[in-house]
């Protein structure tokens, strides 16, 4: 599953000086927001890494929507503003949806989206659903450094890898989002997948990972400021929260170990390649014919092995490391909904306190014989009784939602991990089998030294 290179065609971008940058009125902090031209890339269609199976919650029909994301813009864009330069270019991703669901207007649709569009979608979904206890999948992180290199037309391996990494992350994000039964039906999601024109995302600053984190932290702050500590009558919630705290720590640790593995394998690959070259030189220098040939063959084997290490490290990364990264971010979203529940509880409690106050005020007014003030007080009591009831309903609803969401999350998590672990082990088997092949081909060469 090594990604194939996405090539940037040189004509589209002039890597010369930075031309005038159009100020994006929406987001003064986003230096690279304005679009001047599309970047044309060449890359074949890719299989989604997480493939959808039937999802009974959505529909009894066996085929669920399949979303492919790949970047390919075969035609140069017509809307090209002023002097085009690399810094103002932006990447466009093609989103292809195949579905049999009736909520979609067509069974196959293809749209073009920018990275900020994805962030915009997430922001809308988070604001709509998080407070109801729904676990909204987080969008991929912004990366100014990575994107800059791509924009200035750097065609080196790191920018190619970056584009693939981002494409893959965006694809996983969408797949997770549509896997959620409620989110799939959301009009914003449908619009994102279907409509050819999408209004530009309002404020990319707020849409960044940092922005969402801020929103989550605000909820957490609200929880910390609560004067009355929540009396958790439901042990399930306490247990689950603790479990997610633990899971957070465990996954971060696992993620760090896997990142270390990716790094070391890459390093090993580089050093193996370097040795291969050196062994070839040694073979050339060797004056004993058979030994010289064997050394050259050894160099070839080592070169193949270095490629093998590199491919394996891609598997390490895309299969495991990225998945773990996704889950670490998902758990932040999960912790967020627990905090939202506490916020709801606090709101309910505050309403009860207010109601009590209003009742006390009314009682006082009973003996003051001020009929209009009394009427107002009675009205207010009714108002706050309503609010208390609403608060209780909301709290119960969010609790119910969270239970369901967490159940679904757990099921998905287990399934995801099982699938990925299997794929990864199979990739390891493949690597070892290749190693056997290469060394077995070399053995007669070594034996032939006479």
């Amino acid at each position, binding site marked *: 599953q090594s990604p194939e290179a996405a090539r940037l065609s040189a004509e589209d971008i002039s890597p010369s000086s930075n031309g005038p940058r159009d100020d994006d009125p929406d987001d003064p902090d986003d230096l690279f927001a304005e679009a001047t031209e599309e970047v044309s890339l060449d890359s074949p269609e890719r299989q989604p890494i997480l493939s959808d199976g039937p999802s009974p919650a959505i529909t009894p029909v066996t085929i669920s929507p399949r979303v492919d994301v790949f970047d390919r813009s075969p035609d140069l864009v017509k809307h090209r503003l002023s002097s085009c330069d690399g810094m103002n270019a932006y990447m466009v991703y093609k989103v292809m949806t195949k579905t049999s669901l009736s909520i979609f207007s067509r069974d196959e649709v293809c749209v073009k989206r920018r990275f900020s569009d994805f962030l915009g979608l997430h922001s809308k979904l988070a604001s709509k659903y998080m407070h109801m206890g729904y676990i909204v999948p987080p969008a991929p992180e912004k990366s100014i450094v990575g994107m800059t290199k791509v924009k200035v037309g750097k065609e080196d391996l790191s920018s190619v890898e970056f584009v693939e990494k981002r494409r893959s992350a965006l694809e996983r994000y969408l797949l997770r989002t549509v896997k959620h039964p409620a989110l799939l039906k959301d009009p914003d999601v449908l619009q994102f997948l279907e409509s050819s024109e999408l209004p530009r995302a309002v404020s990319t600053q707020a849409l960044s990972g940092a922005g969402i984190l801020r929103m989550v932290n605000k909820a957490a702050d609200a929880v910390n400021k609560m004067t009355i500590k929540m009396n958790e009558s439901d042990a399930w919630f306490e247990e689950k929260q603790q*479990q997610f705290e633990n899971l957070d720590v465990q996954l971060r640790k696992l993620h760090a*170990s896997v990142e270390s593995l990716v790094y070391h394998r890459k390093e090993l690959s580089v050093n193996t390649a370097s040795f291969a*070259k050196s062994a070839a030189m040694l073979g050339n220098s060797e004056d004993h014919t058979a030994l010289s040939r064997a050394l050259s063959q050894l160099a070839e084997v080592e070169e193949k092995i270095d490629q093998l290490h590199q491919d394996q490290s891609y598997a390490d990364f895309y299969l495991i490391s990225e998945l773990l990264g996704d889950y670490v971010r998902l758990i932040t979203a999960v912790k967020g909904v627990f905090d939202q529940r506490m916020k709801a509880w606090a709101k309910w409690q505050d309403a009860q306190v207010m109601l009590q106050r209003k009742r006390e005020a009314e009682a006082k007014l009973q003996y003051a014989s001020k009929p209009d003030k009394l009427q107002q007080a009675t009205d207010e009591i009714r108002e706050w009784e309503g609010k208390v009831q609403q608060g209780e309903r909301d709290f119960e609803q969010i609790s119910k939602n969270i239970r369901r969401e967490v159940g679904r999350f757990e099921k998905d998590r287990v399934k995801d991990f099982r699938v990925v672990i*299997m794929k990864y*082990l*199979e990739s*390891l*088997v493949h690597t070892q089998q290749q190693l056997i092949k290469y*060394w077995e081909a070399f053995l007669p060469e070594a034996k032939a030294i006479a």
Partner: protein
Amino acid sequence: MTSISEDSDKEKMRSVSVDLNNDASLVIDIPDALCERDKVKFTVHTKTTLSSFQKPEFSVPRQHEDFIWLHDTIVETEEYAGFIIPPAPPKPDFEGPREKMHKLGEGESSMTKEEYAKMKQELEAEYLAVFKKTVQVHEVFLQRLSSHPMFRKDRNFQIFLEYDQDLSVRRKNAKEMFGGFFKNMVKSADEVLISGVKEVDEFFEQEKNFLLDYSIKIKDATAKAEKMTRSHKIADDYNHISGALNNTAADNNTAFKKHLEKCAEVFEKLRKVEDRMASDQELKLTELLRYYTRDIQAAKDLLYRRARALADYENSNKALDKARLKGKDVAQAEENQKQCLQKFDKLSESGKKELTSFKARRVVAFRKNLIEMTELEIKHAKNSVSLLQGSIEILKSN
């Protein structure tokens, strides 16, 4: 303190040179060694039927510096100028395991007990590997000497093997006497002198060109091989991943917990295999290259000495011509010229023999090691495949 005395392992270890203990009249080995604070004490054990020795079997303790002394005295000996002198064993280098021990100490708090125990185990294994390697390389040095018709008769060699007192006094005297004169000369000027010599002999011309180029290439290959085998740290990462998986397993329901624990087990087993893969490659490939880099240098040193002898001969010719012109000290000059020619011819004759057998030795050693390394890599890869496939089956049925 660590000690080593397994014979079967040593047989496998002796990879860089073909078996040198063929001649029963003088058999040397290092059956035991002690490591105290990075200072290694080797037990040199000799079995001999030669009458020049006082006893038929004896052992002495020796340090690395004693080996260097022996090597240097042999290098300084004129009569051996026509031989390839076995390269001195490198100083025992415990830098790798020491660094690891340091890292282990620092990271202790962030690891689980199991991870820590495993890393400690690995550290001990690495220490032992370095230890075994240094014993082997010191042993091979002595065996090269004992299997050579001239060196085995060397007086200092005998003293080294037999003298049951501390050699440090002799070492100091030697330093004062020679001051490393020959050694330093060889190191600095050989390239220039060797390439400068006008070679009449086709054999030596070829050898010179070959050795000069090959020594550069093999030095580079050794460095790159060292870098490669040093960076083979995959086993460490598998260890951490295994630990992290076990950690994660704890909080799950039974089915998934078993799944994760099985995975942790897979990584743990893979770790062992990766470890062996890396260490076998180090032993068979990197050690081989290291040894022959040193041996190639020894061959170059021979060429240097011969080149110097040729230069001396040419100078003596010039001196003779001058003497004949002046009509003074002709006889002396004639005698000098005769001796220089004799020396040069002797060096050329034995040099040719030595270089020819050196090539044969080198080819055999490379063949042996490349075959052994390849067979081991195949074995380990097959192990990995069967262990992975077995686990995949179990996980699928789960």
